[in-house]
């Protein structure tokens, strides 16, 4: 028997020993026969930014493959919100939606991305300094509250001069520093 036919025989032995089936049809599992996995569920996202994990679960890819999509801008509008060297990537949920459904509106500019992340903050008013509480940034960034405070302490975000910062009070951050941070931290 030549090498190819030996391999084919091995494959046939394996496939006959391991029949893959819907498990409702097996007498080994006491499961009903009438269950069918329906259409894939669509989840609506209220937070504008999602983690790489969400993209992995949505696209059924590993994190390296998702990061490659981000870096090639196939998934645009992703930001590295890390404090230190370990990346803390957040991706615009709208980008993931557009990736899955190309007919959906595309986010075309940084201004549009900021509008999605902070919908009430982008209308500049003359003579008014836009500011936002750290806790609101944390929710929109999908990070913990202390992450935002540490970004402030590290100089990436600017606290409003004189803002109160103690237990129960979320300090205020200059919104211009938030948009500047996102602009600098955009990936690819």
């Amino acid at each position, binding site marked *: 028997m030549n090498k190819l036919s030996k391999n084919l025989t091995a494959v046939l032995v394996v496939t006959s020993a391991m029949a893959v089936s819907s498990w409702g049809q*097996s007498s*080994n599992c006491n499961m009903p026969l009438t269950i069918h996995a329906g259409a894939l569920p669509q989840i609506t*996202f209220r937070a504008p930014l999602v983690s790489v994990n*969400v993209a992995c*679960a949505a696209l059924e890819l590993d994190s390296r493959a998702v990061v490659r999509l981000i870096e090639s801008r196939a998934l645009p509008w992703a930001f590295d919100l890390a404090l230190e060297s370990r990346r803390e990537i957040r991706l615009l949920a709208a980008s993931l939606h557009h990736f899955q459904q190309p007919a959906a509106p595309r986010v075309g500019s940084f201004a549009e991305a900021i509008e999605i992340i*902070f919908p009430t903050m982008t209308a500049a008013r003359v003579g008014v300094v836009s500011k936002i509480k750290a806790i609101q940034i944390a929710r929109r960034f*999908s990070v913990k509250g202390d992450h935002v405070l540490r970004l402030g302490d590290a100089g990436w975000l600017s606290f409003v001069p004189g803002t109160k910062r103690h237990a129960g009070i979320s300090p205020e951050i200059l919104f211009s520093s938030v948009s500047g941070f996102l602009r600098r931290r955009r990936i690819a």
Partner: protein
Amino acid sequence: MHPTPDSSLPQITFKRPLVNLWTAVAALDRSSYEVLALIEEGRLRFAWNIALRGDGQRDVRILTQSLFEFQNNQAAPSISADEDFQRAVKLIFPAVSHTRGVATVRAATIYKKFSVSSCHVLSLAEQGTLRLLAGTVQRPGPDGSPQIEFNSVVEFLARRRMV
């Protein structure tokens, strides 16, 4: 911050049957404590703690379908609790293999479905929480992932369900 109208929010289709706690936090824009409360109240009907140790440690996975049903105000189907559980398991593992008459799934399938590392699944097997099929071996390459007895996976999901 004013709420964004639902119609303008992005909808993401999930190929994986389970999502982690933080995905639910982002989808619902609620805190992790609030999402855990929804699980404990049974409003997010199917969730599991798949941590290596069941005591104290928490590594939550929520059935994507349960999150979908919660967002769309869908009531629980009119079937028995047992059938309901089996339906949930079937969404996670729609098909199994049969090896020498025993229903099995590869460790690699489990870690992909659970969104955990391969080490996590192998550790669950080492501690006896999941049972390796007798005689199965781990080796490099295609089909090298060890086979796990499917019944032990179902038992694990039954024990670790959060309610």
